[in-house]
Structure formats: structure tokens, C-alpha cells
């Protein structure tokens, strides 16, 4: 029975993403509990050079599949590479971040290896010689604790819930490079074009701070005040479903059950009533602030701090105050 933890070290453009560090830190802790190694798997193009740095977050070893054809993520090619590496390394657990890449890859690996999967986990524990996980279901209205009856188990972690420990610069990981033969068959879906995101626009799933607007913002122009506050804080601007359905903000900004799930350090909800479906997308935020003119708005029951008032007055006041006190 294996006791290693294989961790997908997600990268974009040759740089590892913070979720990779989150996963590796947790993977290391899991491996210690299991008495095995934390083995990171880096797939991409130009990742070999930075692979050893993953040791700073706890990787005992990094297996690298570096190939120009793997510059962009596709589930077929990455899946093939990942599944092959995993199957050769006797894992108890396959660990990923529940991101765009991670969700595809986790599903692929699960089917390729015949391994059960639990996605978007917010807690885990070593139990009875194995790993148990806890994850939100019914849009976070309940949590399920799952135990696995076979190995390996494929687990993906909700981003930004497990913050990585500070990197230990003294550590570095052994790097093993794998050569993988890739044919056209491994690229059955072809990315014809990528229309890059608006430069400088922070994705809500990556942001530490989110300033989010709901129906109370009354229209696309109303978001200017939120954009200003977000700009000052280096935050992303999110939106409730109503706002997106009305066409005021793009779907990529939507937070909620049919949008994105986020877990930032600070979530500022402006003119958002707090419907269950919205809470599903942000209730694990560390700190929630609500600004709403309706004192009965349900969001106040979930928020840590609230201001009852007109967001068009409060949000600019907030921007000014933060400029003054924090600069």
C-alpha cells in the first residue's frame, strides 16, 4: 500500500501559482501523517528551472514533465502526463487545487486510475491510517465528511482556504525529469485562440480582497465607486447573480452558486441582499463586511461587520478613510 502524496503543482506561463504552494504545504502534512513522501508534479513548458523551489514549501521531490507542446493546459495531454506519473509513484493520495485546471485534471486522473474523488475540500484529517476530507455540498448549506475505501484517493482543495506556510529558503527538492512521448492524439481538443483577459484585471478567485456589488448598485455606472475602492485595495470586483443577469457585469465576475466560489481574506458586499445562492459563493471568506441600506437584509446575519446606509455614500467614504489611515 502506497503512502506517498502526489501533488499537482499548477503553473501558468511557467510560473507556479499560489494554489500550488497551498497544495504542496498540505500535501507535505498529509505525507508526514501517512509516513510517505510529498511528491510534486510540474507539467508545462519551461518549468524545469523553477521546479526545485517547490522544496521550499515542503515538496520532497518534484517530477517534471517539460515539453514545449505542454505550454498551455489541455486535459488530454496534461491528464496523460499526470496519470502516468501518478501511477508510477504509488500514491495514497493525489492532491490538487480545485481550480480550472485542477478540476479537469482531477476528474481525468480519477477515471484513469479508478480512484475515488472528492473535490473542493475545505478540511482534511489523518484518520485510521488514511485521509478523511470535509467538503461543502448543497452550495455550502451542509458539509460532508468523506472517507475513502481505496487507494489512491483524488482530493482537490478549495483555493485560499489553506494558506501556505512561509517558504523555507533553505530547502530545495530533488528534481526528476520525465520524457513523455506526445502525439496528436493527446491534443484532441485544440486551442485555436485565446482572447486574453483585460490586463490588470484580478480574477475574483485569486484576489485576497473582493469588493462585490449587488442589485443595490442599481446599474453598471454604480460600479465606479466599487472599482475605485477595489483599485485602492488591489482588490477584485465581484458581482451578484442579479447584476450579471442584468448585463451590468460579466459572468466571470459572478460570485455564488452558479458563479464562482471565493474565499478571500476580506469580502465587502455592497448592496447585496445575501440570498442563499450568493452566500454559497463567499461564506468561507475570512472577514465579511456588508453595506446595505436595508437593515433587514439577510447578509447582515452572515457578515462580521455591517454598515446600514446608502452604499453610494458609504463606499466613497470608505475609500477616503482607507486612503487617510493606510495610505
Amino acid at each position: 500500500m502506497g503512502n506517498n502524496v502526489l501533488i499537482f503543482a499548477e503553473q501558468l506561463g511557467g510560473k507556479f501559482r499560489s494554489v500550488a504552494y497551498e497544495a504542496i504545504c498540505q500535501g507535505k502534512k498529509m505525507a508526514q501523517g501517512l509516513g510517505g513522501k510529498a511528491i510534486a508534479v510540474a507539467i508545462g513548458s519551461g518549468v524545469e528551472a523553477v521546479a526545485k523551489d517547490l522544496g521550499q514549501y515542503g515538496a520532497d521531490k518534484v517530477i517534471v514533465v517539460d515539453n514545449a507542446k505542454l505550454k498551455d493546459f489541455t486535459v488530454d495531454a496534461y491528464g496523460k502526463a499526470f496519470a502516468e506519473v501518478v501511477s508510477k509513484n504509488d500514491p495514497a493520495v493525489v492532491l490538487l487545487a480545485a481550480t480550472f485546471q485542477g478540476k479537469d485534471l482531477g476528474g481525468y486522473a480519477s477515471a484513469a486510475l479508478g480512484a475515488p474523488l472528492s473535490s473542493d475540500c475545505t478540511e482534511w484529517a489523518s484518520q485510521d491510517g488514511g485521509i478523511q476530507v470535509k467538503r461543502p455540498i448543497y452550495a455550502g448549506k451542509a458539509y460532508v465528511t468523506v472517507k475513502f475505501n481505496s487507494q489512491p484517493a483524488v482530493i482537490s482543495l478549495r483555493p485560499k482556504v489553506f494558506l501556505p506556510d512561509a517558504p523555507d529558503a533553505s530547502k530545495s527538492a530533488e528534481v526528476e525529469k520525465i520524457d513523455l512521448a506526445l502525439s496528436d492524439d493527446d491534443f484532441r481538443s485544440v486551442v485555436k485562440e485565446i482572447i486574453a483577459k483585460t490586463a490588470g484585471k484580478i480574477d475574483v478567485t485569486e484576489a485576497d480582497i473582493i469588493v462585490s456589488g449587488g442589485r443595490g448598485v442599481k446599474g453598471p455606472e454604480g460600479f465606479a465607486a466599487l472599482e475605485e475602492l477595489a483599485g485602492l485595495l488591489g482588490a477584485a470586483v465581484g458581482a451578484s447573480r442579479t447584476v450579471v443577469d442584468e448585463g451590468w457585469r460579466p459572468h466571470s465576475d459572478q460570485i455564488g452558486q452558479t458563479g464562482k466560489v471565493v474565499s478571500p481574506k476580506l469580502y465587502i458586499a455592497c448592496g447585496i441582499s445575501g440570498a442563499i445562492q450568493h452566500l454559497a459563493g463567499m461564506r468561507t471568506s475570512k472577514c465579511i463586511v456588508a453595506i446595505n441600506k436595508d437593515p433587514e437584509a439577510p447578509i447582515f446575519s452572515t457578515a462580521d461587520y455591517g454598515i446600514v446606509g446608502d452604499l453610494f455614500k458609504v463606499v466613497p467614504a470608505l475609500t477616503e478613510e482607507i486612503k487617510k489611515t493606510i495610505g
Partner: protein
Amino acid sequence: MNIVVCVKRVPDTETKIKIGGAGTKIDPAGVEFIISPFDEFAVEEAIRIKEKLGKGEITILSLGPAEAQAIMRKAYAMGADKGTHLNDATECQDTLAEAQALAAALKGMQFDLLLFGKQAVDYDNGAVGVQVAKLLNIPVVSRIIKLDVADGKATVERESDMGKEIVEVKLPAAFTAEKGLNDPRYPKLMDIMKAKKKPLEEKPAQLDAPKLSIVKLDYPPARPPGKIVGEGEEAVPALVNLLKNEAKAL
């Protein structure tokens, strides 16, 4: 053009979830069930493609308890032609076992397009579509917001970490639907009545023993009660102070 759409019966998103007696399942009393919203986008897209091409057949496939048939009939009312119900009431939450049961049924079906919702809004794993595709060894593109089909190929759009991707893939292929793909139609009253008459085949699901088990269900941890800092702009300095010094969020 043969299209198969997998749909799942799930609790309405408005439902208040109560954990049942044994602590491992929800209490179904008073729960309204619907087609998982993302599956609905998939059904709608299938119908639009059929309408655009002027031909084709849409088959609904659903793994679930007997009541899943009522949900399938809703897809019929929207415009699907027929369907297969894989009867299984275990709710094992093991996406792999479910994917294997679906794949087993799909092996006997002919299709150009295999559509799923990106995730079922009960267990939110978002895995089954990709798992089934891998088990059938067909390509899959997840979370599409646009789908065009021509000459045995599909061209899709989706939003990834890199921006908006335009992806091309040869059929047969699988896709999982993301919000924004379309606006599902309301079924016409006439079509709700006609749905009764469309063929629905029932088979027992070939479900292997699940490889994971539910230990328990819990309610979300209660957030400590928050406080209303004050009213209007006057409350802002106090809020900033709290965020900085108490919550350490700024």
C-alpha cells in the same frame, strides 16, 4: 446528429437543507426537486442545435431514483425526444462509480455530442462529465459558454485562467455546460402534456461498490455573530479601525 444529455435530479437551490436522522443524508421532506441548473443549459443547447440543423435526436440519460423520471420529462417538455433512466437510489456521492454506471450505459449508445452540466448542484464535485469522457476515451472540453457544430467538428468557447479560449475538437466529444451558454426556455404547456407520451426506458444502474463513504453530514460552522458598526458614512472610521486592528483584514 445524435445528442445525449446527462441530467441529474437535485434539490431546488432555494431549499432549506435539513440533515436526516442517521446524519448521513438530507431529510427529503418538503424538498422540491429540479433538473440541476447546469444540466438545464446542456438540455437547452442540445435543443438549439437540433433546431438549427433541422434534424437530430436528443436522448436524456439520468442516473437516479425512480423520481428522476419526472425530471427527465421536464427535459422532454423542453424538446428532448427520448431517454434512459438508470435506476439507482443509493446517493453514494461517489462520482467515479456514477461515471462508470453512466459510461456503461453510454457504450451502447451512438452519439455525436455528449453533454453534461459542469457540476450537479447537490454535491458540487464537478467531476462526472470529465470522468465519463475519460472512461469512454472521448475528448472533453469543460465549462463551455458557446457551442457551434459543423462538419463533424465542434468549436466552443470557454473562460479559463488565461482568458477566453476558443477550442476546436472533432466529434464525438463531450462538453460540460457553464452558465452563460444559453437561457433555458420555459416549456410550453402543450409540450408538458406531450412529454408524457415520449419514450422513456428504465434499466437498473450498473453501479460498482462505491470507493468512498459518507462519514457524516454537518451544518456549516456558525460564524460568530457580526455587529452592525453603525449607520451611514459616520460609521466608516469605526469600520476601518475594526478591519485594521480587530479583524486584521486590511
